């Protein structure tokens, strides 16, 4: 059993939200009737609302990104479980200023079905809603089945870009097109050497998977979904290579490309390690004459205390680069 500092397992999400609300009451509020967190100022006159949602346990995602030039509302599910369609519907309604709402979600069947229902319902009421499903995880299905791939840390890049676009007053169609464009140009791949645990007992929970003493798993998902391959753990340089090569080939990224780089810690992997990884990644991209235009290194989309990390590359054009480089500010994410 993995130890945790929690009270009753069934209360973790609600208590976390209580803590988040008192800590960041200047930025977010909660809907009375629904477990939905909303940006204090939303709906914002003239701005397309940005809604996402998903299971809990990924902090800073999702609620940590509600803020300036980022998200307007998040429907908060239980640990690793989709929120209900009602929550998503309530989120959509709460942030619609009349210019419409874009839903961005990861490609998980629970989330997809619940967003589908919510969007249908909102449309029935005359709200303009579009959705874009993110599927950046190269490790979760071969290229032929791209539509089956999971959404992982690439979601953060999408939020950043659409948040900036929406803030400029772009139309729903324009904002949606940005989300789609980022998704089409984004690929990720992860690795883990230690599991996390969904809280299930008073002081912790059972590991989501088990690996041998010195094993790691390549391609593993954000909830401990099995990946491409288990093998003995390798050096940071080797692992970095094993992750970035399939990512580079998949798009493919080419000489001369400008990219955004995201190295995302899954929970217990230290920043020390992430900078060692970044060092190698930088060398590899340099060797291929691919330019890093912007980089994010840290924990952006975790899996509780999982030990591991993912690498996300996004091919940039002028517009995407400038959107990713525009300022953004929320309780758990800053860019300026």
């Amino acid at each position, binding site marked *: 059993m993995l130890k945790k500092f929690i009270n009753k397992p069934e209360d973790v999400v609600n208590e976390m939200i209580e803590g988040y609300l008192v800590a960041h009451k200047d930025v977010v509020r909660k809907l009375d009737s629904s477990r939905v967190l909303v940006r204090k100022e939303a709906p914002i006159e003239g701005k397309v609302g940005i809604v996402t949602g998903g299971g809990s346990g990924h902090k800073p995602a999702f609620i940590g990104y509600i803020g300036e030039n980022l998200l307007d509302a998040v429907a908060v599910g239980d640990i690793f*479980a989709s929120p*209900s*369609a*009602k929550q998503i*519907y309530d989120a959509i309604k709460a942030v619609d200023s009349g210019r419409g709402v874009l839903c961005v979600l990861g490609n998980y*069947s629970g989330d997809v079905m619940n967003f589908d*229902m919510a969007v249908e319902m909102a449309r029935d009421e005359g709200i303009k809603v579009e959705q874009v499903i993110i599927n950046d995880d190269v490790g*979760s299905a071969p290229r032929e089945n791209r539509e089956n791939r999971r959404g992982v840390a690439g979601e953060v890049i999408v939020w950043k870009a659409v948040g900036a676009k929406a803030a400029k007053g772009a139309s729903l169609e324009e904002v949606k097109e940005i989300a789609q464009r980022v998704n089409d140009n984004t690929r990720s791949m992860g690795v883990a050497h230690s599991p996390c645990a969904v809280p299930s007992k008073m002081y912790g929970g059972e590991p989501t998977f088990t690996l041998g003493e010195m094993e790691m798993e390549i391609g593993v998902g954000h909830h401990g979904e099995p990946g491409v391959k288990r093998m003995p753990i390798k050096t940071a340089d080797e692992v970095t290579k094993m992750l970035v090569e399939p990512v580079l080939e998949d798009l493919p990224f080419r000489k001369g490309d400008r990219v955004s780089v995201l190295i995302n810690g899954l929970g217990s992997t230290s920043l020390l390690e992430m900078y060692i990884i970044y060092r190698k990644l930088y060398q590899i991209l340099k060797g291929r004459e691919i330019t890093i235009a912007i980089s994010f290194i840290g924990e952006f989309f975790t899996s509780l205390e999982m030990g591991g990390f993912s690498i996300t590359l996004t091919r940039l054009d002028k517009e995407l680069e400038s959107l990713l480089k525009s300022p953004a500010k929320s309780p758990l994410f800053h860019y300026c």
Partner: protein
Amino acid sequence: MASKIVSILQEIVKVLEEKKAELNRLDANLGDGDHGRTVVNAFRNVIEQNKDLEYKDLGDALQKIGRTLAFSTGAATGPLFGSAFIEAGKRVQGKEKLTLRDWKNALSGAVEGVKKRGKAEVGDKTMLDTLYPAVKALEQSVDKNESLKEGLLKAIEAAKRGMESTKDLISRRGRSSRLGERTIGHIDPGAASSYYILQTIIKNCLEEE
């Protein structure tokens, strides 16, 4: 008639409560181990939100239940069960009592609802593998002009065999599809819960007859 529907919902909660641990265990093999908890809460929630469920029209009642399920449950279960009830309800709109043919139509509506929502096919190791054989059995009973009771009992049997058949299938939908071949040898939790629900509904309707 409100009491009858509510009492069937209460029976469903009771049965699912009994099977909760088993369903969680089945889901732990293939997914995240929460299916028992999720379905119990889902139907509890339906009762909570439809305490005064009155109807002249069984179709309306089923759709109301479906919307509550679909809308408020979360996880995969909500939209799937919800769509099943909603589509079933649409096929028996205006009816206060069901013939065997109505049962067949309702259940095949449920199958269509799940298919549409989950983009699953029969054989993908989901609740469809429970529901679809029941529809087939009902079709045959209708063709053979069997009694309501006979037909419904056969439908339960077929659903049970369908549920058991998921043991040998590879999951192609939902969370468990990530496990690929590793899913062989385990019954699908959604197939199991939908069997228990269908069985409880039919049993209670037959008792009333």
